[in-house]
Each structure stands twice: as C-alpha cells, then as structure tokens.
C-alpha cells in the first residue's frame, strides 16, 4: 500500500511532465544530454537523485521494480530507493532481473540478458564525458555541437603513453549512432558491450548536473578505441568463488588481514540464481533451497 500523503511516485504532476518531456527528447536524440529542472529529492546528491526522478516519471502502478547498487540488491542505496518507491508508488518489487519491468541501477548492467519492454535507469554522477578534460560547460557544449571529440582521444592516447594500454576501466566513453560521445555512467568497461543493441530502453539521469539522456532499444553504441589498441572489456581473471561463474563481473572481497581474498559476482541475483541451481565455486557452500 502506498503512502497516501504523497502523490503517486512522490513527484508532483507538473514536475513529472517536465521530466517526461526531457526523456522523450533524449530518446529522439540518442546520447544527447537534455537539460532538465532537477528537483531536490529526499536523499542527498550522489545517492541517485537523477535516477530516482527518471524512475518516478516512468513508473506506473503495474510495474515491478528492481534496484541495484554495483550489481547488489541488498546494499544501502538499493534498499533505500526500493523502499522509497514501495512507499510512495506502491509498486511491486523484485530482485530477479527477468521479473522486473523497470530496473534502476547504480554502476552495473545486470548479467542476465535484458528483454524488450524492460527499462534500465542509470544513476549518473557526471554526465559529461568531456568534463574532466574541459571544465567549461560552454566549451563542452560547443564540442558536442561541432562533433569535436579529439580531446577524448588524446585522453585515451595519454593512457597508452603512460601505461602501455588504455587504463580507463570504468565510465569508458562511447559513441552513440556515430554522433554523440556519451558517458555510460561509471559502469565497468566490462559492461560496455551490453549497451549496444540492447532490447531494453536505457535511460540516464543525473540529478545534481540536471541532465537526462537515453539509448533507445537496438541503438548502435561503440566504445572509443584505436586501431592498434582495440577496446577490450576486462574483468578479474578468476571464477566466482561462490557460484563458479567464469563470465560474470567480479568484486574482490578482502577476507582477513593476512592477504586473504575472494572474488564474487557483483550481480547478487545472478550469483544466487546460479548457487540455487547447484553451481558451486571454490569457496562456495551448497545452498539449501528455501534456507539461508
């Protein structure tokens, strides 16, 4: 039951209309950052206020919401945002990627393939891929206008000059439909290939920076690289220690002060599903169905 003291999904209707218009223009120009009048939300900047506003504008009472933070359904940020929408919108929630119609994510794309009709909402801290190279908004806006993206290639080149490879490992810049260079939010570059030609609609909300952008389904997204240094999605060279998955993105967990560590799937739903299906990693314990 939703909290009747609030309008459906917290925001007032005029605000939702404003956000909805921005989302539609973002969809019409994939990768372009549409300015919008971001509102103060009952959570601090950096907690996903942009994503929350986009989610609030898109939610219907029929939706099933999933919220993840670095792949996990059970961390503070994910739990608080999920509870926020349970309370203000009364929507159903789930941890299963396949059951969700709308997924709000902080810095990961779920391992399970997304499907047509699903919406993935990203929380974005700094939407401008050129911002750390050029601090002036007037200049970066001009660069997008003129398709002047030499600077970002210089940045990748400097990586190679300094480290021998492109060392950028997250928030790896992409080019959308051959036009706009876009920050995919700080997802690991392991996830970059999943941006392209996804059957799901991908929406990006940056609350503090007041920008919304979008990737419609089946949009062509290319990670920037060089002919002699092609883009390589990377992950820790291990299998998950809990479920044994070899193809998922891993978190490194320090287990003691003797150098002990383990690698586990960052996507908790993916890992749990595999454990319940009987897969077992090096440090895994067999799961009893229905019990923890």
């Amino acid at each position, binding site marked *: 039951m939703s909290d009747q003291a609030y*309008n*459906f*999904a917290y925001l007032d*209707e*005029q605000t*939702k*209309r*404003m956000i*909805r*218009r*921005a*989302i*539609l*223009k*973002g*969809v*019409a*120009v*994939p990768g*372009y950052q*549409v*300015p919008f009048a971001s509102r103060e939300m009952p959570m601090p900047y950096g907690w996903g206020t942009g994503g929350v506003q986009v989610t609030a*504008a*898109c*939610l*219907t*009472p*029929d939706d099933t919401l999933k919220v993840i933070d670095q792949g996990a359904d059970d961390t503070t940020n994910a739990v608080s945002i999920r509870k926020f929408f349970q309370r203000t919108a009364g929507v159903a929630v789930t941890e299963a990627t396949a059951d969700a119609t709308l997924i709000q994510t902080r810095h990961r794309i779920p391992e399970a393939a997304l499907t047509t*009709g699903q919406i993935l909402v990203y929380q974005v801290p700094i939407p401008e891929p050129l911002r750390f190279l050029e601090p002036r908004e007037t200049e970066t*806006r*001009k660069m*997008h*206008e003129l398709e002047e993206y030499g600077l970002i290639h210089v940045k990748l080149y400097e990586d190679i000059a300094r480290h021998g490879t492109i060392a950028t490992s997250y928030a790896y810049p992409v080019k959308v*439909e051959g*036009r*706009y260079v876009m920050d995919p939010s700080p997802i690991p570059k392991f996830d970059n290939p999943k941006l392209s030609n996804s*059957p799901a*609609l991908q929406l990006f909300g940056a609350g503090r920076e007041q920008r919304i952008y*979008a*990737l*419609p*389904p*089946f*949009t*062509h997204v290319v990670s920037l690289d060089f002919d002699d240094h092609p883009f390589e999605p990377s992950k820790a060279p291990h299998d998950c220690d809990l479920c044994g998955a070899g193809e998922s993105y891993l978190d490194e967990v320090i287990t003691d002060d003797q150098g002990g560590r383990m690698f586990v799937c960052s996507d908790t739903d993916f890992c749990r599903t595999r454990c319940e299906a009987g897969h077992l990693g090096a440090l895994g314990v067999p799961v009893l169905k229905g019990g923890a």
Partner: protein
Amino acid sequence: MNDALLGGFVDAAVQSSHAFRAALTVLSQPGEIRELHGAVPPAPLSVAAGVLLLTLCDGTTPLHLAGAYDCASVRDWITFHCGAPLVSVEAAVFALGDWVALQPLGQFAIGLPDYPDRAVTLIVEMPALEAKGAVLRGPGIADAAYLSLPEVAAFQANRALFPLGFDCFFTCGAKVAALPRSTHVEAV
C-alpha cells in the same frame, strides 16, 4: 455545465503514468502502435491526441493548433485542462493538427545546434494508422519496422537535419505511434 470542463483525467497521476509509458514506448520503438485512454476531448480532437496533451502539455509548453483544430471548443478544453499558451507556429513547443494543416513544416523550431532538444513535437491527427507502409530503420528498431506515414520525403529531409529536426506523434482514435527525428524512412 460547460463542455470544456469535462473529459479530463479522473485520476491524473495514474492515468498520465500509463499514457506516458505508451508514448515512451512508441517513440523509443518507432512503428509500434499503442492505445491511449482516459480523456474525452471535444471533436475534432481524437482520444489519443487529447491524452497526449494532458500528459505532456502544461503552462510551460506553448502549443500551436493548426487548421480545423484551432476552434473554440478545442481551445477552451486545452485552456482549462492543460493551461498551455496557444501560440503561432514559430513559438510552438508542441503543435497539433492534421498533416496538411501543419504544412509548411519549415516554419517549426528544429532546435539549435547546441540545444537540439529545443525542437517542436508535432501531434499529427491521422485518418488511419497501421503498422504497414513506409520502411523505418534506426535506433529503436531491431531490423525494420513499418508505419503508415502521411508521406516519406518530409521525414527523409528531417532525418538529414539530425541531430536537429522535429519529432512526431501520430494519433488516430485511441491509437498512437511516433517517429523521432533519428529514424531513417524509405518508401516501400
């Protein structure tokens, strides 16, 4: 009672959320057709066009009414339910009319090179709307989609302006489809 006061949303928050999801779906997947319900606008406005206006327009979005849609009953209904300022073509953020009345399209805002989002959204009332006809390719479309567009040349010229250009919703009765400026259109 004045007819202009009737026919709005009964439960605005919920009805507009469903309407927006349908609008978002058709714009992000050109060629898809959805139905919009919840408003009972005065003739000649279609249900879908009325719902779109209630969902997207308010006092901050200048609206242009073209041709037969610029009549007292429609103006009064929009003024009461949306509060959108009714303006001439150049100032329009939204424009509503049939395809012929909206011509010439060159008069509408297509956005600025540094702010391509400042472009008009056209709501085009159609005599029929079917998922067949012109071939659509581009973002939102896996391979090819089809939509009964009023013409092809205008949308090819619009695509050539990308990232500038107008975006269209097509409405017919309760049905709605859309064509963003990013879509490549070919005649069959």
